[in-house]
């Protein structure tokens, strides 16, 4: 713990921090361009100069380790002069195009030029001009604005793990380039955030808004089960962009491209008014009253067994609770939230959570990935695995598809038989797990959403127990979900009741006619043509597969349009907030179910969000702990059974299109075209 003097005040800082961080701890902000807390130190912008005792020149504070007895001044005439000089050099080749620059208003260079800029130019030569570079559908480049901080190069190589961006040439002729290739990374959107100037800007967002005219709403992402913390920027009710919000235990300060750029899907194919199928078989616009009446009429006289309900992948906990209670009033046990048919949820909570926690990955020393491709299913989690890998001493084994996770993995095999070998200790990787102090296993939906899913789950449990993954204060058993709603649904018990049918059962019943009415709560991810014989009520926000099969459509709200509670794959309860109102006549999802319940006879016992949340907590007390994790009890789950021979396949084939919002997003379509289709053509497989 070095103690040093900063601007005459003594401050004690942790071992290993640099002078810049020490100054921050002491409460002095140091201007910087190239330095970033989560990247390696480059020290090439020279903006963070401070004065140090016994140093004849100012020192670059980001590059100087804080030492005992240092005396540092951050605001002397020498420092100001040095920084003004650096700023003048930076501005020599920086164009004066702030009025047409998308970074304007949130630009580090702009802000710091206010403090250290010279008010006129002494430079009379020609400014440098650099040709634009092609970086794919998400990043727009205006390279003349680049100040060569190299943050983008370091981010791509270190955090994203794709070495595709670099600096060619030297001195004044240095240029940041990707050699005209799109950056094939699911984290590339973050390059725009870390660029301190307007050289890399967001292509979909180009010229559409200024930061000061946007309303910022802190919220939670639902594109995958990580629950990245986001900030939704809206103008009116229009979501202009999505930015990451700092949460050290979930997404640090990054988000993946789907989270960031799928928001333009919120503008297309929206359900904004109720529809009811008329006698001619065509969907016709209706009022809420007509829609509810039609449903109530259909449900009249039906027994609970004839009704089924399926909850979708992006539902908030409130609406799923309302759906469960609504089905309760109808007396129906046919209820399921596992659209993909994963064999989880029966048994202890620890059996369907990512127990290690995302931040906990950094403590692990061996990992077995089973039937999952975290890079496609949960890109932020993969970034965490990579971060752990780069620290060294971390072995990753893969059972499932062959894949490139940006770090070194050991491919063990394709299917359950390999997993069995590992469990029996016959596979060499078993030795690695045995020797590891904190090993972990990750079961993906590719391993669980299949016939023998329950047996795989039991086998995973056996591995966890026999290799010492479950210890005091360490639980290495993990299930990685792909659906943001899944854990909340399982916590609330949206599972078939006694004698009830699961998703497959409901679909079969609908085909044979045993199920008369199916209620889809934003559920689109299965073959909806199997519902042709049944009366389908679809409540959701997009005209996707479910809406096409529906007889009554009730327009709901998307995740940016409601105050909802989401539980991520770790079991972390987080709140999403309303950023803009739902379009047209669409309403909050739980309130639709509440209104419908009044028509069918038995109104649900809550009239406002507070009461719904009260009921949530009564149903599952984990909902009372917002953003706090409590270790789940290690109790029984999984059923031993016969293992199949099928290889495990990741459920996410196309990272950019996994849900109704991203499927309707133009940006995601462009990404699919740029990144997914060429690979399919090249390999001839559907990877």
């Amino acid at each position, binding site marked *: 713990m070095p103690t040093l003097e900063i601007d005459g005040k003594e401050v004690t800082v942790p071992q290993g921090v640099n002078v810049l961080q020490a100054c921050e701890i002491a409460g002095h902000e140091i201007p910087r361009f190239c330095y970033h807390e989560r990247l390696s130190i480059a020290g090439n912008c020279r903006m963070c100069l401070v004065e140090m005792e016994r140093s004849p020149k100012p020192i670059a504070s980001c590059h100087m380790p804080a030492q005992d007895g240092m005396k540092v001044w951050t605001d002397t005439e020498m420092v100001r002069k040095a920084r003004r000089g650096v700023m003048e050099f930076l501005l020599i080749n920086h164009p004066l195009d702030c009025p047409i620059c998308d970074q304007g208003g949130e630009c580090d260079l702009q802000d710091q030029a206010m403090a250290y800029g010279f008010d006129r130019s002494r430079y009379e030569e020609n400014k440098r001009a650099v040709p634009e570079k092609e970086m794919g559908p998400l990043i727009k480049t205006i390279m003349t604005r680049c100040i060569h901080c190299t943050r983008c190069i370091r981010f791509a*190589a270190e955090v994203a*793990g*794709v*070495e*595709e*961006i*670099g*600096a*060619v*040439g*030297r001195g004044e002729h240095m240029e940041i*380039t*990707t*050699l005209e*290739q799109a950056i*094939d990374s699911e984290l590339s959107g973050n390059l725009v955030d870390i660029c301190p100037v307007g050289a890399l800007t967001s292509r979909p967002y180009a010229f559409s808004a200024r930061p000061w005219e946007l309303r910022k709403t802190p919220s939670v992402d639902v594109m995958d089960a990580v629950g990245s913390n986001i900030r939704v920027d809206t103008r009116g009710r229009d979501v202009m962009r999505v930015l990451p919000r700092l949460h050290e235990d979930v997404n640090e300060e990054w988000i993946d491209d789907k989270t960031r750029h799928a928001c333009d899907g919120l503008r297309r194919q929206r359900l904004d008014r109720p529809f009811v199928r008329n006698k001619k078989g065509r969907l016709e616009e209706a009022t809420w009253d007509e829609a509810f009446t039609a449903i109530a009429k259909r449900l009249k006289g039906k027994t609970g067994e004839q009704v089924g309900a399926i909850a979708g992948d992006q539902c908030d906990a409130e609406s799923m609770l309302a759906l469960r209670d609504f089905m309760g009033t109808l007396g129906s046990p046919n209820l399921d939230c596992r659209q993909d048919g994963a064999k989880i949820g029966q048994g202890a909570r620890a059996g369907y959570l990512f127990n290690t926690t995302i931040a906990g990955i950094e403590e692990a020393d061996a990992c077995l990935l089973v039937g999952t491709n975290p890079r496609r299913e949960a890109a932020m989690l993969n970034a965490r695995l990579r971060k752990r*890998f*780069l620290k060294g001493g971390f072995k990753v084994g893969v059972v499932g598809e062959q894949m*490139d*996770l*940006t*770090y*070194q993995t050991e491919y063990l095999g394709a299917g359950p038989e390999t997993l069995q070998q590992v469990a029996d200790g016959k596979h060499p990787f078993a030795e690695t797990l045995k020797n590891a102090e904190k090993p972990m296993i990750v079961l993906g939906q590719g391993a669980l959403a299949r016939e023998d899913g329950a047996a795989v789950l039991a086998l995973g449990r056996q591995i966890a127990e026999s290799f010492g993954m479950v210890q005091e204060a360490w639980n290495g058993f993990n299930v990685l979900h792909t659906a943001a709603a899944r854990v909340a649904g399982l916590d609330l018990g949206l599972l078939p009741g006694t004698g009830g049918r699961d998703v497959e059962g409901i679909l079969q019943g609908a085909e044979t006619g045993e199920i008369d009415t199916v209620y889809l709560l934003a559920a689109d991810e299965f073959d909806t043509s199997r519902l042709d014989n049944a009366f389908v009520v679809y409540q959701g926000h997009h005209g996707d597969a479910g809406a096409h099969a529906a007889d009554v459509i009730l327009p709901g709200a998307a995740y940016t349009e409601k105050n909802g509670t989401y539980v991520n794959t770790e079991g972390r309860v987080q709140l999403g907030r309303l950023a803009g109102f739902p379009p047209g006549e669409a309403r909050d999802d739980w309130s639709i179910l509440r209104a419908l319940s009044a028509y069918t006879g038995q109104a649900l016992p809550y009239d406002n969000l507070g009461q719904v949340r009260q009921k949530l907590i009564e149903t599952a007390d984990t909902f009372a702990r917002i953003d706090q994790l409590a270790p789940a009890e290690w109790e029984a789950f999984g059923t031993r059974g016969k293992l199949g021979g099928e290889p495990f396949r990741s459920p996410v084939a196309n990272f950019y299109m996994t849900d109704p919002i991203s499927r309707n997003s133009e940006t995601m379509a462009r990404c699919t075209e740029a990144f997914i289709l060429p690979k399919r053509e090249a390999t001839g497989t559907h990877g």
Partner: protein
Amino acid sequence: MSRVTTHPKVTSFRPPETGDFAFTEASWKEAEFALAKYPEDHKASAVMPLLWIAQRQNQGHLTRAAIEYVAQILEMAPIRVHEIATFYTMYNLEKPGKVQLQICRTTPCMLRGADDILAAVKTKLGIDDGEVTEDGLFSLMEVECLGACCNAPMMQVNNEAYYEDLTPEIVERLIDDWRAGKTPTPGSQQGRAGSEPEGGPTVLTDVQDYGAADGPYANGTFVPAEVRRARAAAAQADNEAGTSSDKGSS
């Protein structure tokens, strides 16, 4: 790529596009020598020698295919090798002439008339810095100090031969020689041995007078072998030049 080993994967990148570039057997021999110097998991350290070998094999310049071929051998991201190849000035990205004139213009050479040399070459060849003559024979490059300041002004040819003590006339004569297909003798063009003063040593000639201590130089007769050889070569060159000019005049 069986001839080199693999190292741990830490990033993902697109596969290199090597085109039809490949090392010849001779290049492989040199490359293996370079690779053997570094541990297997740090073989990226051999990137600069390998680029150099590729450049030599490829008539003095690096193409995109050659750069990516080196990336493939070293399992580096292609962009990293591109960064190196574009950073260093001795890697040529365009095909140079058969005779690359690299004229020093750092302070000592400049003071001794490098600007005149440069102007003479430019007018003689009709090309500017960084250009190649139309017949592809000469290319001109301004370079910084090459460490032969005692013999300033000087130029380097094809990255190896130093031509020193230049004057505009000498440089023009040299160019004529290359045009005629001859290779002029490198070294001082004014008859100096190494970087000795003109007309022999001027200091430490009177060591005996001061009763110098023992040692190889004590009696003033010992001359190191290198100096002896250089003097002999210079004398021979002088003789040849003298006889040939005599013949020419007669």
